[in-house]
């Protein structure tokens, strides 16, 4: 089969970087499987319980970068109780014992301890990059270990983690000789920051490209930092609150003007509106803008800023921008690819900030738009149909109407037709979140048309098991299905057990699934872990023979090659 020596094939494989492609080539023949496994540099594990460290090391002995994901997505919304799992410690221990020269570790929704970080920092001489997203369980002491021991660290990127801030001196733990910093993101730290240590660190980091500060960095310190790092590409400005002096604002303006490489801006946690204009000189170069935490800035100031951002590709904003603001975005940001509009009014009872009009305007004005997350209080089928016509290129379409079960506000009809139009027009749709009043019909459309769909989020939707069955039968590429508060039960769950082998995971909470149904599924499919999360009334479920019919509050099932996990807490039952 091979006409070339292995080294040549390996060299060719070096150009194949996507995980999917490398998985595919490893299936071609035994020889390619072997060459591929020894040469794979980046390993991606989407569910840390689908495999274990030993099997990972056996298959890929030479990797440099590991990505691990732990808790299911709905953990972001407090649906997964504390202590469920996703511990990184066993992975780091196993890797430390092995001969893997780990250089990069990317973790999402995992439990990380100071002990883990300490072990990590001591075990891998060439460790370069640590990215933690939505993790928890560690403190600034763990960060101090990383800073102290990782001589070649380039990236320390902490995104929206829950970190116990001991207000310590972790920043001063970077040795004076350490100058290789490229990325530093500590925006999620709540406590005080050693400004002196931070300024000195930035001053001796000529390669620094990305700096995201937390709320404890005041305006004058920001100005000094920017003056030290005019080469910055990605800046998170932290608090941006200007209590006292306009002198700081002037210094900031001067510093900003020198940052000609700045392409991405975020932060503004406590922003004072009048200081936003300090950034106008660099707006024309910005490709990414995240103002979604700037709750204090009025829509008009946001608009003034955005009017200067003609090259914007990514925009995260609050709905306080309003439909009018979105019209400005639509007419200004012709390069826009990704838009996220977050809600300011979480109860959904207040003013209608953005409506279907804003969404339609964006779809009409931004031809390159392919990803959208849109929180709003009302929607119509007509609007969605127009959006589908304007933007057939959506890869990710997530619409969240704040009030569950809300129909088309003009016709009072379900929104089946609107979403149906989206899935029919957008042939490359990979991710979809639906909301509003929806019947089984919308799922018929999804099953029929969403052939590329990999992730689907359903909440308060559907009428009968048929809805879920349409999706399971139709969407051949489905990987992650998450459902809450919808009337799908055992019949849908058990119809095609083998389907779950082709998926990463299924989440169902507050649905109609019963304990008996789950047990039956587990018996039919031993290669699945069927987890039942039952926080309250731990013992009630198995009592008095009704168990078969008792509703399961939270079901999480996933394929795995390593059987039942051993670290589950008492409130998680695994069948």
């Amino acid at each position, binding site marked *: 089969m091979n006409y070339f020596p292995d080294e040549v094939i390996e060299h060719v494989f070096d150009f194949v970087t996507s995980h999917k492609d490398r998985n595919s080539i490893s299936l071609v023949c035994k020889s390619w499987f072997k060459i591929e496994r020894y040469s794979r540099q980046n390993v991606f594990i989407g569910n840390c319980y689908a495999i274990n460290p030993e099997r990972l090391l056996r298959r890929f002995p030479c990797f440099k970068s590991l990505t691990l994901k732990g808790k299911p997505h709905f953990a972001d*919304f407090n649906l997964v109780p504390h202590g469920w799992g996703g511990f990184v410690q066993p992975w780091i221990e196993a890797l430390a014992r092995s001969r893997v020269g780990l250089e990069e570790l990317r973790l999402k929704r995992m439990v990380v301890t100071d002990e883990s970080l300490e072990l990590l920092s001591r075990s891998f001489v060439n460790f370069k990059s640590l990215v933690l997203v939505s993790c928890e369980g560690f403190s600034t002491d763990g960060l101090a270990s990383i800073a102290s021991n990782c001589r070649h660290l380039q990236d320390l990127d902490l995104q929206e983690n829950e970190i116990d801030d001991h207000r310590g001196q972790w920043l001063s733990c970077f040795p004076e000789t350490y100058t290789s910093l490229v990325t530093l993101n500590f925006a999620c730290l709540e406590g005080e920051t050693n400004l002196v240590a931070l300024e000195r660190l930035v001053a001796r980091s000529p390669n620094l490209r990305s700096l995201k500060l937390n709320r404890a960095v*005041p305006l004058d310190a920001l100005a000094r930092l920017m003056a030290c790092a005019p080469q910055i590409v990605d800046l998170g400005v932290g608090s941006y609150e200007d209590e006292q002096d306009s002198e700081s604002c002037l210094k900031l303006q001067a510093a900003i003007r020198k940052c000609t490489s700045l392409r991405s801006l975020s932060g503004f946690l406590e922003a004072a509106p009048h200081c936003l204009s300090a950034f106008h000189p660099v707006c024309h170069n910005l490709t990414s803008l995240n103002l979604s935490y700037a709750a204090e800035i009025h829509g008009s100031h946001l608009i003034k800023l955005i009017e200067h951002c003609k090259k914007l590709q990514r925009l995260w904003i609050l709905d306080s921008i309003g439909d009018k603001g979105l019209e400005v975005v639509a007419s200004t940001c012709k390069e826009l690819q990704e838009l996220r509009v977050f809600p300011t009014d979480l109860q959904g009872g207040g003013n209608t900030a953005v409506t279907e009009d804003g969404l339609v305007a964006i779809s009409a004005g931004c031809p390159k738009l392919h990803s959208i997350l849109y929180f709003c209080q009302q929607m119509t089928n007509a609007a969605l149909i127009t959006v589908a016509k304007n933007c057939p290129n959506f890869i990710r379409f997530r619409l969240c109407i704040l009030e569950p079960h809300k129909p088309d506000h003009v016709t009072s009809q379900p929104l089946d037709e609107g979403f149906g139009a989206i899935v029919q027009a957008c042939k490359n749709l990979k991710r979809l979140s639906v909301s509003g009043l929806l019947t089984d019909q919308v799922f018929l459309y999804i099953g029929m048309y969403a052939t590329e769909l990999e992730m689907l989020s359903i909440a308060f939707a559907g009428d009968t098991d048929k809805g879920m069955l349409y999706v399971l039968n139709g969407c051949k590429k489905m990987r992650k299905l998450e459902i809450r508060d919808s009337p799908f039960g055992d019949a849908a769950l058990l119809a095609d057990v083998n389907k779950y082998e082709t998926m990463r995971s299924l989440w169902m909470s507050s649905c*109609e699934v019963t304990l008996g149904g789950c047990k039956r599924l587990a018996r039919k499919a031993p290669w699945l872990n069927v987890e039942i999360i039952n926080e309250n009334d731990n013992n009630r479920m198995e009592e008095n023979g009704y168990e078969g019919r008792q509703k399961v509050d939270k079901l999480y099932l996933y394929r795995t090659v390593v059987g039942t996990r051993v670290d589950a807490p008492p409130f998680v039952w695994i069948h």
Partner: protein
Amino acid sequence: MENVGVCDEFVNLKATELRLGLPGTEDGGEEERQKVSCCKSNKRAFPETEKDIESTGKTKPASPPKAQIVGWPPVRSYRKNNIQTKKNESEGQGMYVKVSMDGAPYLRKIDLTVYKQYPELMKSLENMFKFSVGEYCERERYKGSEFVPTYEDKDGDWMLVGDVPWEMFVSSCKRLRIMKGSEAKGLGCGV
């Protein structure tokens, strides 16, 4: 984050109760859900209005009231907390005062209406700024700590936190300042 966890359990009780009915149908459970109000201001329940029941009642059985639904809307806690604080401030809900601490380069804001008495407030401040305030007693005030919590009242005077009854404090406090060391020792209880 601890508070949020406790509140979730509270609200969750009804949501996870095992019963043989469709989700969203309650017998008299609706009132109970509304009564369950959480300690943090960002979990206030909304009163149900007739209009809402009608608009959603056409094709479905009685929909859940606008009381807090766990994990809805799907917004991360980090984001939720940030937004809710700002919203309450701008709508005049809650009683937000700025808190500064000597030596800390940043201000925080807290909502006094969230607390019921001094110990709760002190605990929260201690957590926020990572310090310890020691024991409070009538005669020696805050013993055993170099940090002393003070506040500026309506008349512009700087007073020691804890000297006046709680309700009086909440109604007259304009801002808080946690003083450090010698400066604090000279502080009387006003006038």
